[in-house]
């Protein structure tokens, strides 16, 4: 990252020395564009606005550096003597740079050393080739990347199935050649046999036999072609779907949540379908038809070059018109794609939240809502199709003008004896044959563009850089359960730290309660233990091994999770419990359900463990779902257990059952439990109290109460609420 102002020379003159770091800012305190510089010398931090120094402060007086994201801008400031002071304002693109500057100065405050600014992965990068922005989470510059590259990858993927592909290619070429032979034979029959001068019937019969044989061979070739093409296209479609799905499954939570579920489903189903179609129809056919057109052209020119040229006069016109129209049609179909996507997402959203829709009786509003999107999609499709259906016949008309030229001039030549009737008929066949592929080739750009967009969207995900990936030689660790946080800092954005300087050690088998107000970073902390995200600095170790050195599979297979909202998959109770350990025996399943206090209610259902519990387990109550989730966790036998508000929103009776189940589950396992109701954490060995992203205090329930600090206040506030609700 660059920490040198564009106005460095002016800054040097103003300060009388060269700054260590200097960074430009571009807004003043009234939101007007300005040329400001935030400069850091060996001793001071100086703010220059225009030509004058606005603020200067000794580095020794600064307690903290702050970078704040405002709504449409950002602000950099310091904390001096406990008082926050805002120093300069800038547009959001400079936010990362100022956050980095803050980090460098923090380092200087602690060590007295001004570190060299490094490259930051989180930072937006610029493409060295075209100067465009390379967005976060990708290494591809989408601006100068060629779309054809992605179709070429589809072709290369198809080559995996080279034998059926070659067979279909051979069959298609044979079909095209036989069709070319057909008019030639027609001409021969007319000129050589259907004339009074030739009475050779036997030779005529042989020729007619060949004439009949051609469609028969074509028929067999088409069967071969269809079978082989279907095989290749289905296999390519399957490969792409699988690759894409695997990649989505392997992605980090951060990468997965950045795209809506509907969008991901569309890429897996619709986009792969389009690419499949490309393989089945357009890719191979394009090569063959272009070749066939060239061969027919050569034959026509050889037969009668003058007539051939007349026929071909309108072709450049048609191609030019196609290119102009294609430019517009692409935009129109892009709009169709976008409207379809919106309509699908809306549908997905409404159906997922159908319970809320019903509860609020807002069916009519949602019908109107969806109808609006559906109408917008239909309108865009209508407009695009209208344009297409208008443009296509016009091009077709221009393109077939050649046929009239051929009839007029060709007929004239036959009458004056310059051309035989057979040659004219043969020519007619070729004219028909050349315009067919030409019309098809005219449509080709549309299909190719659609396929290229789809292929690009698929490969965009497949090529995405993993932000949480295994190191080159990850360890498969048999976890005992010691977890240590060493000066961990983390933020979903570099300028927005969520957890700051977190350090603690948890011994194997300990139960740790994590408490603190909402939004303080409790769930973030457990997400870091599961390595759904990587720490920004510091490290987390399990049994002394950095979790980034442990293979993700090994790590997560030894962590069990019970969340507030349990997600059950469509299927039976048994299938949902087995999800944690597919090879578990029936005895193990029953045992787990018993420990989880789930066995009794399962037995009350008509089909017991084979009871189908519906989509997301809608047939079960919240408490029942929770006990299945606990059974799942028990079956997995994890070394580290995470309970995130596992008993929230349950009635007292159910909570008792679940508390019992959890007490059995947490025995001898390192457990991290988050709970709003502090009474549920009374059994914890120690409590970690988070406040403003930092550890405010740590200790047992009694110790913390004696401290009369953050935890004490939380407990008192909660007692007050309980008392009030009882009153």
């Amino acid at each position, binding site marked *: 990252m660059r920490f040198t102002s564009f106005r460095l020379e002016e800054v040097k003159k103003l300060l009388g020395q060269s700054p260590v770091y200097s960074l430009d800012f571009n*807004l003043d305190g*009234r*939101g007007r564009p300005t040329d400001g510089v935030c400069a850091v010398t060996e001793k001071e931090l100086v703010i220059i606005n225009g030509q004058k120094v606005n603020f200067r402060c000794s580095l020794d007086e600064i307690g903290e550096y702050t970078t704040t994201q405002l709504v*449409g801008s950002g602000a950099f400031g310091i904390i001096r003597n406990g008082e926050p002071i805002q120093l300069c304002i800038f547009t959001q693109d400079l936010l990362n740079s100022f956050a980095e500057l803050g980090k460098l100065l923090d380092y200087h405050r602690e060590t007295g050393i001004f570190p060299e600014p490094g490259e930051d992965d989180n930072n937006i990068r610029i493409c060295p080739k075209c100067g*465009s922005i390379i967005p976060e989470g990708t290494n591809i510059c989408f601006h100068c990347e060629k*779309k054809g590259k992605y179709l070429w990858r589809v072709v290369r993927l198809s080559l995996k199935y080279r034998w059926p592909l070659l067979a279909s290619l051979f069959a298609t070429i044979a079909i095209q050649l036989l069709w070319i032979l057909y008019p030639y034979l027609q001409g021969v029959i007319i000129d050589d046999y259907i004339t009074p001068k030739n009475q050779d019937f036997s030779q005529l019969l042989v020729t007619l036999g060949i004439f009949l044989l051609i469609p028969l061979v074509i028929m067999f070739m088409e069967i071969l072609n269809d079978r082989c093409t279907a095989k290749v296209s289905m296999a390519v479609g399957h490969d792409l779907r699988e690759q894409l799905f695997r990649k989505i499954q392997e992605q980090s939570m951060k990468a997965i949540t950045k795209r809506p579920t509907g969008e991901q489903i569309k890429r897996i189903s619709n986009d792969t379908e389009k690419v499949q179609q490309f393989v089945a129809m357009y890719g191979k056919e394009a090569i063959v038809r272009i070749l066939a057109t060239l061969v027919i052209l050569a034959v026509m020119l050889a037969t009668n070059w003058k007539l051939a040229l007349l026929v071909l006069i309108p072709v450049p016109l048609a191609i030019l018109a196609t290119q102009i129209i294609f430019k517009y049609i692409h935009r129109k179909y892009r709009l169709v794609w976008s409207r379809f996507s*919106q309509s699908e997402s809306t549908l997905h959203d409404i159906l997922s939240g159908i319970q809320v829709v019903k509860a609020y009786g807002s069916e009519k509003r949602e019908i109107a809502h969806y109808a609006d999107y559906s109408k917008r999609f239909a309108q865009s499709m209508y407009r695009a199709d209208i344009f297409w259906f208008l443009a296509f016949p016009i091009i077709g008309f221009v393109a077939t003008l050649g046929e009239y030229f051929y009839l007029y001039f060709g007929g004239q030549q036959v009458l004056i004896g310059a051309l035989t009737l057979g040659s004219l008929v043969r020519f007619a066949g070729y004219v028909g044959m050349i315009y067919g592929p030409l019309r098809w080739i005219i449509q080709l750009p549309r299909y190719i563009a659609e396929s290229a*967009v789809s292929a690009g*969207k698929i490969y965009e995900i497949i090529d995405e850089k993993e932000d949480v990936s295994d190191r080159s030689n990850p360890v498969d660790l048999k976890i005992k359960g010691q977890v240590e946080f060493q000066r961990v800092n983390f933020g979903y954005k570099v300028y927005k730290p969520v957890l700051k300087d977190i350090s603690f050690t948890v011994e194997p088998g300990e139960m740790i309660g994590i408490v603190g107000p909402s939004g303080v970073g409790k769930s973030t902390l457990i997400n870091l233990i599961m390595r759904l995200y990587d720490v920004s600095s510091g490290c987390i170790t399990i049994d002394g091994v950095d979790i980034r050195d442990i293979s993700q599979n090994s790590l997560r297979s030894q962590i069990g999770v019970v969340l507030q909202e349990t997600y059950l998959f469509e299927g039976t109770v048994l299938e949902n419990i087995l999800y944690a350990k597919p090879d578990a025996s029936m005895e193990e399943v029953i045992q787990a359900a018993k420990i989880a206090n789930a066995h009794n209610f399962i037995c009350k259902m008509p089909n017991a463990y084979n009871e189908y519990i519906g989509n997301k387990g809608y047939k079960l109550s919240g408490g029942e779902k929770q006990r299945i989730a606990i059974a799942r966790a028990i079956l997995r036998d994890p070394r580290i257990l995470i309970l995130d508000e596992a008993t929230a929103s349950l009635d007292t009776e159910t909570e008792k059952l679940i508390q019992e189940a959890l007490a059995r589950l947490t025995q001898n396992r390192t457990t991290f439990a988050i709970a709003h109701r502090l009474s549920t954490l009374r059994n914890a060995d120690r409590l970690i109290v988070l406040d403003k992203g930092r550890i405010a205090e740590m200790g047992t329930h009694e110790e913390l109460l004696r401290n009369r600090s953050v935890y004490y206040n939380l407990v008192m506030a909660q007692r007050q609420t309980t008392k009030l609700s009882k009153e």
Partner: protein
Amino acid sequence: MNQLNYLSSRELTFSLSENGILSLETGGKHYDNVQLIRIFPFQHPEEYLSVSVRENGEPKELGMIRTLEDFTPEQRELVSGYLRYKYFIPAIEKIGKIEEKLGYLYMDVTTVLGKKTICISDITTNIRQVQNNSVAIIDVQGNRYAIENLDALDKDTRQKIELYL
């Protein structure tokens, strides 16, 4: 059950430093680093402003300004200056070339800050029609842009952006 505490413009005296720090004198008290929050930034940018201050290190809402129209022109200009930088959203005056590359949109735009090529990811989320006639855009760097009135744009610019609404 009226929980809205509207603050009277007569009781509030704002001041704004060169660095954009907003201070407030009210009820004999002085507050620095005052935050104003637009509750309905799209529908009512100059109305329903929440006034938040820090007391004992914790943010606290003092109350709400119903409308800036009640303030003196000087006070209004001062508060508008603060809101202008906090909600810095340059208006797009013209759109030049638009290129879509694999789901990312590269758009040449002209704003008060000059000409610039912006890159937008996840088009459906980051280009949104917020009112009948206005559009909010967020680029990959987090910069916000606005088209305040679609009808006021030249035909070419309007047609280009309509493709993504």
